[in-house]
């Protein structure tokens, strides 16, 4: 345990100090380059200029686990790779976090049924903090996962005795923004428009007779 860790009671000084430390940790979350498969290309795309993870301070992809705080497991982990993933996780300094990026790492993904060699979810190997579903998840989804990690760091209590961390639950409206021609204030008419549109595209895509 660190010298100051968990040694103080909750007080004005410790909370402000913790906020300062958490802010510093959260905005310099260095990921470890650990691209395994297709999700690695989406991770590179989110690191490149258009989606730019560097806005969150997470752009410095460190090659060694020694200098990394965040391990983004991007791609399918198979049995041969599992021991290496575990060893790399162990070699990362604390406090460390793991993002399971992609359906394969969250739960085996498309290789669940017939993948004799695939680990069905990387949480069998390393403790995972945030799961980012998708095959591959869009860069925006990975950035959303990064923000959830930052929420987790913001809630950490480093100095005072370990109170439970209340994680802010992101409010999801669940509404998709439809283009105006499909949208309609009256829900019934909107539903008809959308069904008509769906039927039209289905017929257009239908294959011709052989």
């Amino acid at each position, binding site marked *: 345990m660190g010298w100051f860790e968990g040694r103080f009671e909750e007080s004005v000084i410790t909370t402000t100090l913790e906020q300062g430390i958490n802010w510093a940790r959260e905005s310099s979350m260095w990921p470890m380059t650990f691209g395994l498969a297709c999700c690695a290309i989406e991770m590179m795309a989110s690191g490149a200029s258009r989606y730019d993870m560097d806005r969150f301070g997470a752009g410095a992809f460190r090659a060694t686990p020694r200098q990394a705080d965040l391990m983004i497991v991007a791609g399918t982990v198979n*049995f*041969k790779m*599992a*021991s290496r993933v575990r060893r790399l996780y162990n070699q990362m300094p604390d406090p460390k976090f793991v993002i399971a990026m992609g359906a394969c790492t969250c739960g085996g993904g498309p290789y669940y049924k017939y993948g*004799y*060699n695939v*680990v*069905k979810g990387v949480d*069998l*190997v390393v403790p995972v903090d945030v799961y980012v579903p998708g095959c591959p998840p869009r860069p925006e989804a990975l950035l959303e996962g990064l923000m959830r990690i930052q929420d987790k760091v913001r809630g950490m209590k480093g100095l005072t005795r370990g109170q439970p961390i209340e994680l802010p639950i992101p409010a999801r409206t669940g509404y998709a923004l439809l283009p105006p021609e499909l949208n309609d204030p009256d829900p019934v008419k909107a539903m008809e428009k959308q069904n008509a549109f769906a039927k039209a595209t289905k017929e257009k895509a239908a294959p011709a007779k052989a």
Partner: protein
Amino acid sequence: MTAAEISAALEQEFGARIKSKNLEVLDPFVVIEPGDLVDVCRFLRDNPRLRFELLNCISGVDYLERDAKKAPKAGFEPHVEVVYHLQSFSHKHRFTIKIILPRWKDGKEGQLPEVPSVTSVWATADWHEREVYDLSGVWFTGHPDLRRILLSEDWVGHPLRKDYEFPLEYHGIRGR
């Protein structure tokens, strides 16, 4: 050169050692004995009219119908085939060689059927044969370094065999 000419050249060179040929199918092929695979391949590569310099792919195919009901009308009796797809760099024509093997060497479960290795003819056969050994379970005699290439060293069994059961766990990680 068309497939008919190629198989004619082969028969003219090897005569009865060419077991059978099938030219009507999409990819005409010739079936030969495992014993004289290396001479046929060397002939195919070095003969000036054939010049098959490129060995594209070696595939191990396990013909087995698993559930007993369909087995009688499966249309083939259980065997393993090793298929060599060749292509000529100078004459731009293709050809296929097949080897029919019993599923297990002289019937004993676990004894892999054996095929002589063609690494002496094409260097690409080194990795392809290691993969066929690793996944389909065919032993290549004379191969310089026959180890598993895709699966881990301590893996048991050959997954592309039709009667392969998926492992329940591996080094403590839940398999199924």
